[in-house]
């Protein structure tokens, strides 16, 4: 039972950006030794609340107390000093610095007035070992994948937090194994009496770890409940304000009949990144790609879209030979690719939602054939509605959107080009349950219309839900393939796990 005295509490928090009210009279109480899930749709205001609690934003109204004392965190440094460790939603680390620097910046061990680099690296190694991560702490952070960076961010926050740990969608790009490790550590911290805030869109994880939930909707608190006795259905209803239609077609992929061959990659390879593989993609087929972190799924997608050029390989599209030198060529062949790292490769932050949505289509047409304003507006409105993108309007700069809504904008950009082959790398990362269902429905519909899809996802449930065929990657090579009824979560896991000694060393 939680202690009656909360460690960190906030009440009456309000926040507006320009005239747009994002939080209105929101409160939250964190008790020692509890894991508190903060839930809500994309754009509900979860990340904003976190940023206010940790001093990254100033709030317009409301009070925050720590151990009963009112506090006014000036900046994040201040919050850190008070024992609040935070992982913000987008990985907010320094890509140009070493892993150790990222873990210890601002609190490096000192010796004779200088930074004790050796000790710092030693500590870093020890710290990361808890997460099963054996990497060189002296290596530059951006030489690692998003997932590894995510773990580094978590390790840093855990290490800093003395009283409160806040995790904003920490598991979005992690696979099962990492999630397990994270949860172990969270349990440990919990038993030490810390309060942990956990934001996620994976309800399974909420039920696995959380003690209580607070749900936000449209910048207001809907309520806080203990998780015990709260049914899944009720929880979703709290979040969405309405019941989610039951997803009846849980295994749609199985029944689908693939159409004719669309694109055929033969003997594709890139040294160090992808072992030679053959891949045939048919119309009306969804190919799921599964694998562990660093198994080379993203690399494969990059090759298929012409971002990296293969060392060997031939491509045939609709019966004709083709070559990919750059993404443009792929787009000319009606390919589309929603990349994994939306901040880096996806959104164009300062452009508006409308411009971001129209960008690929306009590029496809060429700069001399601009879309008319009406056409643009129509396009933007259509996708804002279709994907339920929460924004103040099509003219809002996309960088001000919440993480999940940015992801939807990237999807919209590619759907707008009406592709024949759509490659999605972690398409539902950070997307809420409502939109998640909507996107899966949309993937299905597109497939029914004859589009060919290749979907990379760390969520095996998702892959099994819609794939008509699943490729399993291991160590940058295709380790196996599953079709039809054989596609089950456990079969995929088994395939991933076989021959463990062949994992990247």
């Amino acid at each position, binding site marked *: 039972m939680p202690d009656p005295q909360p460690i960190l509490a906030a009440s009456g928090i309000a926040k507006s950006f320009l005239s747009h009210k994002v939080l209105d009279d929101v409160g939250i109480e964190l008790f020692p030794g509890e894991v508190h899930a903060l839930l809500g749709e994309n754009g509900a205001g979860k990340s904003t609340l976190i940023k206010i609690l940790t001093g*990254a934003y100033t709030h317009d109204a409301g009070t925050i107390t720590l151990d009963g004392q009112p506090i006014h965190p000036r*900046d*994040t*440094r201040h919050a*850190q000093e008070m024992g609040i460790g*935070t992982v*913000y939603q987008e990985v*907010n*680390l*320094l*890509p*140009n*610095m070493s892993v150790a*620097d*990222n873990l210890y*910046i*601002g609190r*490096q061990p*000192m010796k004779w*007035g*200088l*930074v004790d*680099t050796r000790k710092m690296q030693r500590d870093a190694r020890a710290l990361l070992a808890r997460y*099963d*991560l*054996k*990497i*060189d702490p*002296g*290596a*530059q952070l951006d*030489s*690692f*994948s998003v*997932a*590894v960076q995510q773990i580094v961010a978590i390790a*840093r926050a855990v290490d800093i937090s003395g009283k409160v740990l806040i995790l904003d969608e920490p598991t979005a790009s992690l696979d099962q*194994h990492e999630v397990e490790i994270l949860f172990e550590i969270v349990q440990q911290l919990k038993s030490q009496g810390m309060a942990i805030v956990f934001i996620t869109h994976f309800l399974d994880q909420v039920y696995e770890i959380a003690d209580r939930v607070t749900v936000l909707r449209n910048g207001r608190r809907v309520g806080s409940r203990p998780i015990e006795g709260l049914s899944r259905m009720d929880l979703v209803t709290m979040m969405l304000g309405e019941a989610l239609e039951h997803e009846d077609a849980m295994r749609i992929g199985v029944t689908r009949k693939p159409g004719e061959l669309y694109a055929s990659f033969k003997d594709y390879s890139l*040294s*160090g*990144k992808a072992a030679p593989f053959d891949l045939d993609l048919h119309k009306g087929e969804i190919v799921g790609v599964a694998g562990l*972190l*660093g198994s080379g799924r993203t690399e494969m997608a990059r090759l298929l879209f012409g971002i990296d050029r293969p060392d060997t390989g031939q491509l045939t599209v609709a019966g004709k030979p083709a070559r990919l030198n750059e993404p443009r060529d792929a787009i000319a062949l009606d390919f589309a690719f929603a990349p994994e790292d939306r901040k880096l490769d996806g959104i164009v932050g300062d452009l508006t939602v409308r411009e971001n949505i129209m960008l690929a289509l306009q590029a496809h047409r060429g700069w001399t054939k601009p879309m008319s304003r009406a056409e643009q507006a129509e396009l933007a409105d259509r996708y804002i509605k279709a994907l339920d993108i929460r924004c103040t309007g099509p003219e809002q700069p996309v960088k001000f959107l919440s993480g999940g809504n940015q992801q939807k904008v990237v999807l919209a950009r590619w759907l707008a080009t009406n592709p024949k082959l759509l490659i999605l790398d972690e398409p539902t990362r950070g997307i809420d349950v409502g939109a998640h269902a909507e996107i899966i429905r949309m993937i299905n519909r597109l497939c029914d219309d004859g589009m060919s899809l290749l979907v990379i996802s760390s969520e095996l449930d998702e892959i099994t839900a819609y794939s008509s065929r699943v490729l399993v990657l291991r160590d940058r090579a295709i380790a196996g393939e599953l079709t039809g009824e054989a596609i089950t979560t456990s079969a995929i896991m088994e395939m991933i796990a076989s021959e463990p000694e062949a*994992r*990247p*060393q």
Partner: protein
Amino acid sequence: MNPRYWPLIATITIFVLAYALAVMQFPALFSTRVLGNLLTDNAFLGVAAVGMTFVILSGGIDLSVGSVIAFSSVLIAVLVTQLGIHPLPAFAITLLATTLFGASMGAMIHYLEVPPFIVTLAGMFLARGLTFLLTQDSISVSHDFYTWVRGFYYVMPGGGRLTFNGGLMLLVFAIGIVVCHRTRFGAYVYALGGNAQSAALLGVPVARTTIGIYAVSSFLAGLSGVVYSLYTSSGYPLAAVGVELDTIAAVVIGGTLLSGGFGFMLGSLVGVFIQGMIQTYIVFDGTLSSWWTKIVIGGLLFGFIVLQRIIIAASKRDWRKKKVEAVRA
């Protein structure tokens, strides 16, 4: 080999290669005299380059250094000759003034959220304008202290001199390297250059660091003015016009990215040497007309930078294959 070191190694390799080639053409270039001159003649540039390295690493730029050098040299001259102050307190006053100048530029950059380019451009006008207010004439400084400093050198075998100024530059670089790579301030500088927003979220004191960076840069520009003053024993209001671009070029040639976050202090020293080498080479050649001088300087600059790119690109390809990987137990 950590791939971050490649630009540095490329720069050093190119410098050594170029020097060897130049010596093959003009054997007289291979003497301690030339090396000593390289240190002495580029001392003020080097000192300013240390400050510029901090600025550029943090993703900023400081266009005011040339003017600040001129301002310092003139202020010292005025203090010493017209007010009769001993050079040492004059240096102290000057360094204090320039440090404050830099700190206020940093404060403007941070609190007014104005791009450094513009703030320091205004700083460039301001410092030069203040110099003209002090004097329009060049002023000779003759003081026993200057004579004493001038007599303070070490003769290397071969007749080359390691002068006070040359030594001071090396010392400033040594301190710069330590501060840049081994202190918290140095880490904050890299952090700001990597991503200012993330840095703020990670708890880097952005305001303090920004102000500190520009204060250090102007302090070192002031120190560079001291070096210039000792070097020429005079104050000249038109001194060091355009030195900011030379400094920036030295830093960038040294492998530091102008967008911030990547680079090494030591690289800037090599960058300064490369620039000095180009000038010395052209003097030794002695046949170029005024305009061909410019074209050849541009050409050599081009050659250096392209070579550097090629070496780095080649190393990257190699590195991609052996990319550091996450390994799970």
